[in-house]
């Protein structure tokens, strides 16, 4: 086990016993419990300062893993160390070394002004007044919440509240930040703002970030590495760039042309979408180089503008799942 790792996970597994409790018959007869495997022996490690995405569909085991890493859930088997602590054995000690944000749950006091909530959190973590005030000032500046500090949490918008939640998670300057769906429910601009703040904090303070999200934007914008999990199994553990390179078999070439509907009869090129004077071609990089497609287009058409795009990460992840399913079958 690497001593330098911020998070180490080895064969971590968690199963739950679930008992059906529906209908009158279950009042008198105890249904046999069934074992549900939420996480099935996953292993990975994360270096200090790394920003890692934990990706997977609903029920994949992301939140269960995150709960085990925070110490609020004991695994059925396996081992983990976070900041040098075994989470489920040293939960309260670990709590001082990690910050946690559950996007759908608040850790602020709704009726209190944000400042009072953050001061209370500072007391919980044993920060003295001078350090707490300095930390609050710094976070207020970085997260742009200075104007919100004297407003009750209940009066904040979701985006404003989430920025304050991040301040709450970071009051004690933890070296590790665990985020569970941090941008859920936010609009586009609030998401972008929150992502920028997280990157800034991570860069300035060297904070290790492990985040779960359904939003590929969170992953693309914040993270440099991705762990892909499904049905409790770790399917992939790769740098984001490698993930793209391996699972990115297509590029999208969009042409804005004088011609109303240009056609390219090249192998590996298909029309992805078409509007008058604007056509998108899906290019299969296994059959043709994107440069050749562009050169041919410039040769044949009057091109006003063109764009070459990667497919959305959603498609990449879908591709990974398809690949994994194919391997299983």
């Amino acid at each position, binding site marked *: 086990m690497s001593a330098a790792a911020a998070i180490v996970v080895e064969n971590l597994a968690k199963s739950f016993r679930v008992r059906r409790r529906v209908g009158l018959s279950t009042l008198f007869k105890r249904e046999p419990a069934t074992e549900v495997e939420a996480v099935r022996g996953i292993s990975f490690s994360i270096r200090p300062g790394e920003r890692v995405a934990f990706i997977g569909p609903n029920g994949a085991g992301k939140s269960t893993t995150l*709960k085990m890493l925070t110490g*609020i859930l*004991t695994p059925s088997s396996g081992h983990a160390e976070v900041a040098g602590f075994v989470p489920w054995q040293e939960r309260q000690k670990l709590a001082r070394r990690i910050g946690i944000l559950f996007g759908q749950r*608040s850790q602020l006091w709704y009726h209190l002004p944000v400042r009072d909530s953050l001061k209370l959190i500072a007391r919980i973590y044993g920060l003295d007044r001078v350090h707490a005030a300095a930390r609050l000032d710094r976070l207020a500046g970085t997260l742009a919440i200075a104007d919100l500090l004297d407003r009750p949490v209940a009066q904040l918008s979701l985006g404003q509240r989430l920025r304050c939640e991040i301040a709450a998670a970071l009051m004690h300057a933890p070296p590790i930040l665990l985020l569970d769906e941090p941008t859920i429910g936010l609009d586009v601009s609030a998401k972008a703002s929150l992502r920028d703040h997280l990157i800034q904090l991570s860069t300035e303070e060297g904070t290790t970030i492990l985040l779960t999200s359904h939003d590929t934007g969170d992953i693309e914008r914040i993270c440099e590495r991705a762990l892909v999990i499904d049905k409790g199994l770790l399917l992939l553990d790769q740098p984001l760039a490698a993930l793209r390179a391996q699972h990115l078999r297509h590029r999208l070439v969009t042409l804005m042309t004088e011609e109303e509907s240009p056609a390219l009869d090249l192998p590996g090129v298909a029309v992805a979408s078409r509007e008058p004077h604007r056509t998108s071609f899906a290019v299969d990089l296994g059959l043709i180089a994107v440069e050749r497609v562009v050169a041919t287009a410039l040769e044949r058409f009057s091109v006003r503008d063109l764009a070459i795009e990667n497919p959305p990460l959603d498609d990449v992840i879908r591709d990974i799942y398809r690949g994994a399913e194919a391997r299983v079958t």
Partner: protein
Amino acid sequence: MNETSRVLGASTAFLRLGWHDACRDRIGLFGRLLLFSIPVVIFATIWQATPLAGSGHDADRLSWYVMMTEAIVFSVGYVFREIEQDINSGAIEAALSRPFAYVLAWIAEEAGGTLFRLLALLAYGSLIAWLATGMVPFAWAAAPAIVLAAIFAAFLALLFQVVIGLLTAWVGTPAPAYWIWQKLVFVFGGLFIPLTLYPDWIRDIGMATPFAAILYRPASLVLAADQVAIVEVFLWQGLWLALALLLVAAVAAAATRRFLREGV
């Protein structure tokens, strides 16, 4: 900052939060005072109309007694509902991942609110009782001990509510347990009638329960507040407080183990 001062500092912060919240909740306090007035005035009237010759009690002291028991009952909030909500909504997960005991946070916060409400109810109730009876049934020197006994009583009731709230971990909805607990407090604690007026065997049962330490024993100090009685009340309350704290610690540990094993 060492561990003890950190825990004390955080507990004080929660206590102050509860106190300030109760201070700010003016409508809630006004409603409590209004509701509190009803049984106090009604029972003062009933006791005045009740022939008590030979019972060893008089109507004026009994009116003060009811004021005391009602003040204790009305001062304690509904912390079991807060805990129930935390568990059923999953909000307890965030609290469990902090370096501060979840149960201690609630006890401290609720103690702050309960203390404010109790002092307000006792001040207001004393005024009503004095206006209704024209007398104060105890020596002023005994007043601090009576107030302290009421504070211990309310704190004891609060601890049992915390235990009931934590039962959510097993039963999902602890309200029925609370209703049973509340009725037992009313009956065996002597909410309206001192236990000394009960038939002997019921009185003996009541006296041996924590319910008497919550209502009858502290309120009995307005009937007779000599030094022996005061010491006896504090000894019983001390015993029950120690047992209740142990019970809270045991149930909280069991609930936490369950959450860690099975999730919230």
